[in-house]
């Protein structure tokens, strides 16, 4: 059975691109358009990995991580941050909250996202 990825991202074009790429690699990709939706979906779906954007409407990435940390079940799910920005302050904060990896969109490309996913959960 295909491994489940939850992509929490508000930018439509990024969603399309990543869905295409990751589906192509054989993953099962579910989309949430903001933090709130992401948390809800997460509870039902129990994904193998969460790809998480930081700046989003309603609930941002850091708040999602805070919520996940409080929940013993959710806190086990590995998180890879996919963000526009990558300031050291943000990186260290994400690490504190349990993020496993960090990607800056302008500096990485979709293949590298796949590589990082593989590194976390395998194929």
């Amino acid at each position: 059975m295909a491994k489940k990825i939850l992509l929490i991202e508000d930018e439509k074009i990024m969603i399309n691109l990543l869905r295409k790429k990751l589906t192509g690699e054989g993953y099962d990709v579910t989309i949430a358009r903001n933090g709130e939706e992401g948390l809800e979906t997460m509870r039902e779906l129990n994904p193998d990995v969460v790809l998480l954007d930081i700046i989003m409407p309603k609930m941002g990435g850091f708040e999602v991580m805070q919520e996940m940390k409080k929940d013993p079940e959710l806190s086990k799910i590995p998180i890879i941050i996919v963000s526009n920005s990558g300031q050291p302050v943000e990186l260290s904060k994400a690490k504190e909250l349990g993020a496993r990896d960090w990607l800056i969109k302008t500096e990485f490309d979709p293949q590298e996202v796949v590589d990082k996913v593989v590194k976390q959960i395998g194929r």
Partner: protein
Amino acid sequence: MSEEEEEKEEIGEEEKKASLLADDLASLENYIHDLFSFSPLPICFVSPIGVMLEINPAFEKISGLKSYELIGEPVEILFEKNKIKKVSEETLEKGEVEGVEMELFPGKENNVPIQVFTRVRRDEKEDIVGYFLGLFNMSKIRETQNELKKSQVALMNILEDTEDSWRAAEEEKKRTEEIIASLSDGLLLFDKENRLSLMNPQAEKLFGIEESEFIGKSVLDFFQYSELRPLAATLGRKMERLFRKELKLEEDFILEVSTIPLMLKGKNMGYLVVLHDVSREKIVERMKTEFVSISAHQLRTPLSAIKWTLKMLLDGDLGEITKDQREFIDKTYVSNERMITLINDLLNVTRIEEGRYLYKPVLQDLCKLIRGMISSYEPEIKKRKIVLSYSEPETKVPNLKLDAEKISLAFQNFLDNAIKYTPEGGKVTVKIVCDKKEVVVSIGDSGIGIAQDQQERIFTKFFRGVNALKRETEGSGLGLFIAKNIIEAHDGKVWFQSKTGKGTTFSFSIPLIQNI
């Protein structure tokens, strides 16, 4: 004794008396003559019709003429005609005149100012036989008078000058006061005991206080007033010398404080404190930085989308593409990468300007960082057929407090330039040396160099050398500005040497003991 004898004796007595009298008279005449000759006053005896009959030596002296030249001549020839005539008439009428001023030899070069005194002389029948004319030489007195007059004029001039300068000084003072009062900068003047002696209206306005309340108070006293405490803290108890030191009174109310010691002939006369309100500039600066920061962030999202789309196209994730299509997409991808670099540079600049730049520097090996950076440039170096030589000290360089990402960025900017502006087959040298005080990294090239007249501006934001522009149209002109700021944030220094057409060597040093 007979009568005859007696008579004879009597006659003899008479004769004796007469002879004695004659003797007396002769001696009197001599006496008078001597006195007349001795008199330092020029005297002349004039007949009633105005002819000179007798003159004394003093008169000869003052007139410069001998007595034989004067005697028998009318007295008019020596004086102003109508004046002497008047004197004669008055003398004959009243018996004397006293102190009439006139001139001897009027209108001539040898003229002498004199005063004239006269007295008539009568015979035994009280008939006038003439008059004495005495002269009093006034030239010495005149001279003294003239000198006095000159002194008086000179004195008046001095007085006038003094008054003029006083007036000018007063005017100057008023003008200075006016300037101080109307200056847009706040001014405080402290005397040499550090007591306030002047506060202009602008300074009153800035602190919301009245000058009169604070005159004579020292900086120490200022600490007692809440309005002035921040200023006192900035100035310091000892009134240190300041140049445009920022003083934030409130959010968006910022002053720049400068102190200027007032020196007069090497002696300290006190301090001038200049308060320049930079609130507006600071707000604009912040808005500008925020604007650039926000727009750069906003630009990153679409740029990422473009990057990823192109990449997926190139990777074949969206289906096969033709060779032609690949070529175009490749070029678009490269352009997009440049745009991303530019945006990242802009963001770095805004972070420098916002003063939040270095992130937790940790002790680490600078040489290792640099070796890593160089190896990432190998493909580029090979492609451009550039010979790169690298050297580092044999003994290990002590670890330095570094923000690895930023130091890498700075070094990358230097190396990038060295490679970019060196023609194919050229040389690039990276050299690390270390002494007891600091580590110095030099990046030299055999490239196009920087023109002498542009060297001063090389670290300025958005500046690009004219020859560099001709060669490479891309480049934001931000790289060296960022690099310099990164090195300085590490307590280091940046410098360079360059010659057009020969090459450039950029160097930076980081002290072994850093205050960061």
